[in-house]
């Protein structure tokens, strides 16, 4: 299993600070989650039905007709390679060197050999690929691809029977850049998630968009009732709540900029980011990570390249705490303990 952000209990034990003292900035999930209220007993007692309002609401929200709800985009990420395994020795799969690590893990576990590329290398390598998988906006770098470029890549790939797979887990703050409306075309797959923007990571709801035949095969692999009834309910309500969404988009854009400024002003210039997280490349990543952890602030550390990802503080008090901790950072500190375990990939 790969390491991820959000392992607060682990950090609490490691640094000997009680769980409730921590500010968790390690995930990039919106800390101001969509407000879930009472779920009726019937939702727990009955089997979930595919004929509820969820699909119709999702079609409207994402602007796409063919969608399949899954138990978080992780469920899809893991199972996606299995739709291609019969050609695993011939298909050439390209993805970003630095991106959400579960993608590479899933394809490698399924026996594929990967071509790892930097964002600016894709164009040159494209004619050697059958499948291109990008995360857009990318996690953790925040790099965003132009829609026109992705559409152009898809055309080139699909012309020779290939596919473009786009993980849009962090797309909700900028819906105008989403490619879900194009997924009726052959060889075009988009993944979305309710974990980040809506802050409903615990509900485990995501969506896969692709042509109907392809989705049918995925449905077969997933089996019946892939997500729980209560999760379907919450997802439907959150996706329908356009007032909350519009309000949250504005808030998150402001907060994302505020975080970028706060980090830059305190000696940690950001290399990229989205409304939901900022990414800082620094040779002192490990030391900064530890110093903040000793102040009970958990960030996500990456070792290749040495960098940190900061999610959004939850409230004004946390913003001030982060600011104080950043001001107190000592850049001559070398850092001590082994980090392999925390860093993952």
């Amino acid at each position: 299993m790969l390491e991820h952000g959000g392992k607060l209990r682990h950090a609490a034990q490691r640094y000997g600070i009680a769980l409730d003292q921590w500010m968790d900035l390690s995930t990039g999930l919106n800390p101001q989650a969509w407000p879930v209220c009472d779920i009726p007993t019937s939702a727990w007692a009955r089997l979930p039905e595919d004929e509820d309002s969820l699909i119709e609401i999702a079609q409207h929200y994402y602007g796409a007709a063919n969608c399949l709800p899954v138990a978080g985009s992780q469920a899809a990420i893991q199972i996606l390679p299995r739709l291609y395994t019969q050609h695993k020795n011939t298909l050439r799969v390209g993805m970003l060197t630095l991106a959400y690590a579960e993608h590479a893990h899933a394809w490698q576990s399924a026996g594929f050999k990967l071509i790892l590329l930097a964002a600016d290398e894709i164009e040159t390598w494209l004619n050697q690929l059958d499948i291109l998988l990008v995360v857009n906006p990318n996690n953790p770098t925040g790099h965003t691809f132009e829609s026109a470029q992705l559409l152009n890549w898809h055309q080139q790939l699909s012309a020779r029977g290939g596919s473009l797979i786009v993980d849009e887990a962090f797309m909700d703050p900028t819906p105008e850049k989403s490619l879900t409306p194009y997924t009726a075309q052959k060889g075009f797959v988009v993944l979305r998630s309710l974990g980040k923007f809506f802050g409903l990571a615990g509900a485990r709801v995501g969506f896969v968009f692709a042509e109907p035949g392809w989705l049918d095969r995925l449905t077969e692999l997933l089996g019946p009732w892939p997500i729980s009834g209560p999760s379907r309910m919450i997802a439907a309500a959150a996706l329908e709540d356009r007032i909350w969404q519009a309000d949250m988009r504005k808030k998150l854009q402001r907060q994302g900029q505020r975080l970028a400024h706060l980090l830059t002003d305190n000696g940690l210039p950001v290399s990229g980011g989205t409304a939901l997280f900022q990414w800082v490349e620094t040779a002192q990543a490990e030391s900064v990570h530890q110093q903040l952890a000793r102040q009970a602030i958990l960030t996500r550390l990456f070792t290749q390249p040495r960098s940190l990802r900061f999610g959004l503080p939850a409230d004004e008090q946390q913003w001030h705490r982060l600011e104080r901790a950043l001001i107190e950072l000592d850049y001559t500190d070398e850092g001590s303990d082994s980090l392999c375990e925390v860093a993952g990939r």
Partner: protein
Amino acid sequence: MTTLFITLVTALLFDRLLGEPRRAHPLIAFGRLVQWLEARLYAGNAFVWGQRLRGGLAVVLLLAPLTILVWFISQGHEIALLVNVLILYLAIGARSLVEHACQVRDALLEKNMPLARTRTGYLVSRDTAKMNTQDMARATIESTLENGCDALFAPLFWFLIAGAPGVLFYRLANTLDAMWGYKTSRYRDFGWAAARLDDVLNFIPARLTAFSYACTGKFVSAIHCWSTQAGECASPNAGPVMAAGAGALSLQLGGPAVYHGQAQDRPQLGTGSLPEADDIDQAVNLLRRSLGLWLALLTLVWGGLQFA
């Protein structure tokens, strides 16, 4: 009369087939204009009547030019019919009203409380967080009955009385009331003129709507509720509409509700049982039957004039 009749039926058909325009509704542009003018005319420290005068001036500046413009256009020949149909179509929102109500009903029947809450929140300004099924059904039915006047019968009435300029004037005044007609410290005086104008414009349509609900529902109970309960309502026009509607449906509406975090005591309306999700259909059907009555009467009058 023939042109009027054709325009009205065509606009209703457009609404039925197309619903509200999803993108770029002209009322959104008007809303921006309203905010722009409000920023220039609202005075932070004016006296009561000074503020009322400023609000009144704002109403005149917003309504008069557009109404006169539409009056000029509707005098012409070639495009007049098209413009009239378009304006009436944009002024009525019957289909969207019914769709919103049915969406709450569907969510309630699915027992998806969070979704029902979100959808009810689109219809009413009261807080939905602590509502149960009956509260949401009640809020939806109240909204359906009340908007039946604002978004259907009142526009039709003003179109019949004064054509396209009339319906435009009504719709814009109604929008101003929705933006300014609040008894908050900011709008109590500035919104005074808009609120009074809306009261006047809705006076007859509200009573015609109430009477239509009575005629196409339980007549005796509707008239009884109208005459005994309408006066207790804060709004002079919503009172008859809601009381007659509640009576026509034999449902208990009204009663306390929470607005912006503050509980408000509203009078009890209607008779009989508390509304359930299925009763939303009853309210929608009452609205449909009332529209049927209006169309039948109009056809009779039009036919009569053809023979006369």
